[in-house]
């Protein structure tokens, strides 16, 4: 006992306990992990359930067994869908629509954002706000007037766009262009003014400043916008449901519903499989470009 006291006196006194700040931090972290865990479970259970169901045959799905376990795993749902021309057609339609929409969106929104962020013409600030406001109008409000519009165009010109997959190339950009333009305006605005002035003095035209300076520098934002446009067009449901009716013109989300639900018969195994396969492309894209996506969104958010 006595020797302990001697050692205490010899050593410099130092508080080895955590300070109140770090104790606060520890608790904050614990709560964060608790809620993050809760959230992860909440959002991961549905896809897991989809995966489990997709591996079951129809008999097992309707049987009163444990729904969270596969007793007789089978790939029959996958084989049937992937060999069905109809399902592959939906997939192809979705892919074509998404790729074209992304391309169209980028071709419009990048130059638009550059002009609104940098060229400072009369009314550019108002126009920029206006672009964002158009994004706030929900598609459930727009689909009837849009349908009427295309019907009228069809009557007047004889160009039939309704029930053609490519009609979606005119419609989706009304959703994607405003949002992507807005993201890109924020991103371009965060680029220092001197950079385009330097480019202008170096002899670059506006177009060269955009293609050789702004697009490379704002690449993370561009990728974020691309991912957004892709996800939007891939997951669209209401517009394709309204505008396309023949099965050879339908995209994936609509096709699954219209062909795999017959009256009150739900082909659950194939529905789950179809949805799971349909979720794969965005999932793969996110996995590879996640960092860019977050970087792009935050830069646009804080400096926009």
């Amino acid at each position, binding site marked *: 006992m006595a020797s302990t006291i001697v050692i205490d006196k010899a050593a410099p006194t130092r508080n080895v306990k955590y300070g109140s700040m770090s104790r606060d931090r520890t608790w904050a972290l614990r709560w964060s992990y608790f809620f993050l865990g809760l959230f992860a479970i909440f959002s991961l259970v549905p896809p897991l359930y989809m995966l489990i169901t997709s591996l079951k045959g129809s008999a097992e799905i309707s049987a009163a067994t444990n729904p969270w376990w596969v007793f007789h795993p089978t790939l029959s749902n996958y084989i049937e869908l992937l060999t069905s021309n109809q399902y592959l057609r939906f997939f192809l339609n979705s892919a074509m629509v998404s790729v074209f929409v992304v391309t169209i969106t980028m071709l419009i929104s990048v130059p638009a954002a550059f002009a609104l962020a940098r060229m400072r013409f009369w009314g550019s600030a108002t126009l920029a706000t206006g672009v964002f406001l158009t994004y706030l109008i929900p598609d459930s409000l727009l689909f009837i007037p849009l349908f009427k519009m295309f019907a009228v165009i069809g009557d007047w010109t004889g160009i039939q766009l309704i029930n053609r997959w490519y009609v979606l190339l005119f419609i989706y950009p009304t959703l994607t262009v405003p949002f992507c333009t807005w993201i890109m305006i924020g991103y371009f605005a965060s680029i*220092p003014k*001197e*950079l385009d*002035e*330097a*480019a*202008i*003095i*170096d*002899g*670059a035209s506006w177009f*060269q400043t955009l293609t*050789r*300076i702004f697009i*490379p*520098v704002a*690449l993370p934002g561009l990728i974020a916008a691309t991912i957004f446009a892709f996800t939007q067009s891939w997951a669209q449901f209401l517009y394709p449901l309204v505008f396309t009716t023949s099965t050879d013109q339908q995209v994936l989300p609509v096709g699954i519903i219209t062909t795999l639900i017959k009256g009150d018969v739900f082909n659950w195994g194939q529905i789950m499989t179809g949805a799971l396969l349909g979720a794969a492309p965005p999932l793969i894209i996110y996995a590879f470009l996640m960092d860019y996506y977050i970087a792009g969104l935050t830069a646009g958010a804080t400096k926009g």
Partner: protein
Amino acid sequence: MADVTLRKVIKRYDDVEAVRGIDLDIADHEFVVLVGPSGCGKSTTLRMIAGLEDITDGDIMIGGDVVNDVPPKDRDIAMVFQNYALYPHMTVAENMSFGLRLKHYPKAEIKTRVDEAARMLDIVELVDRKPKQLSGGQRQRVAMGRAIVRNPKVFLFDEPLSNLDAKLRVQMRIEIKKVHQKVRTTTVYVTHDQVEAMTLADRVVVMNHGRIEQIGTPNDLYHNPATRFVAGFIGSPAMNFLPCRLEDVAGQLHIRLTDRIAFPLPPARAARYHGLARNEKLLLGLRPEHITEAKVHPEPGIEPFDAVLDVTEPMGMETLIYFTLEGAQVCGRVNPNAGARDGGPLRLAVDLNNMHLLNEATGAVI
């Protein structure tokens, strides 16, 4: 290479006049520095020469041609920015060659020019790096390199050293001077730092409130300022201004500072100021180096007086002293061995051979 001329150049933003009619002739090969406090219009003037700002009225000529409506890229100028403005996604070599590549110069020519500029700026080993891998000083060199490779008629510098630390600033100042001695390109340089202006310029243009206060060589501005603004702006520590008036005492012209202190003017000064009204409110302008410790043997024009010091600042080579005279703080420079100490008395002397006399109301140097 070219001369630059500004004729009655005015810049108005809505109802604010940023530049109020500037006339300036910059000769070929000349290094001219625009200096003044922030908001004096110096950067706006530079940006108008660059073509980044439209001019509201007047003419700007480069090499004899009016360029008012010529876009920046056709003015054959190069500009160095305060924050360097390097293209972050390009290497140093790509940054430097961007302008030449846009103009479709042959590859060999581009390489020769970039190599030459890199050698001149001592950044040869950095040419393959990206800007974010460079220090502030290195970035500044690259920005200069980008200007040099273009071989333009005019270099424009917009506060290029403001983002660097004090030591690096001194070093880069010398670099800029060396580069100018080598390439001899007409240069317009903007800074708020009077030391930079003095050390770099062939001629300094002091600006204030959108107008030119005075144009002259650094020494000229220092020794013969035209206005109170220039006298106070150029030189560090700044010139002292003491309220005073002229007085005749026993047939000799005196300058009276306080009830107790009045100095006889040396003959040359007395002759110059003789015609002034005796009751006019004047300011005595004295640089700190002309307020020193009193010598044992008095010299003509150097008049002793006693003061009680407030604060002393030993600088090593000299000691700065501060004391109060009629409510005004006065700064002087004395020998470190003169016995100056905080709160202590000291016998000082003013050198009236180097005095300036200003009209208090107009601020003009008489």
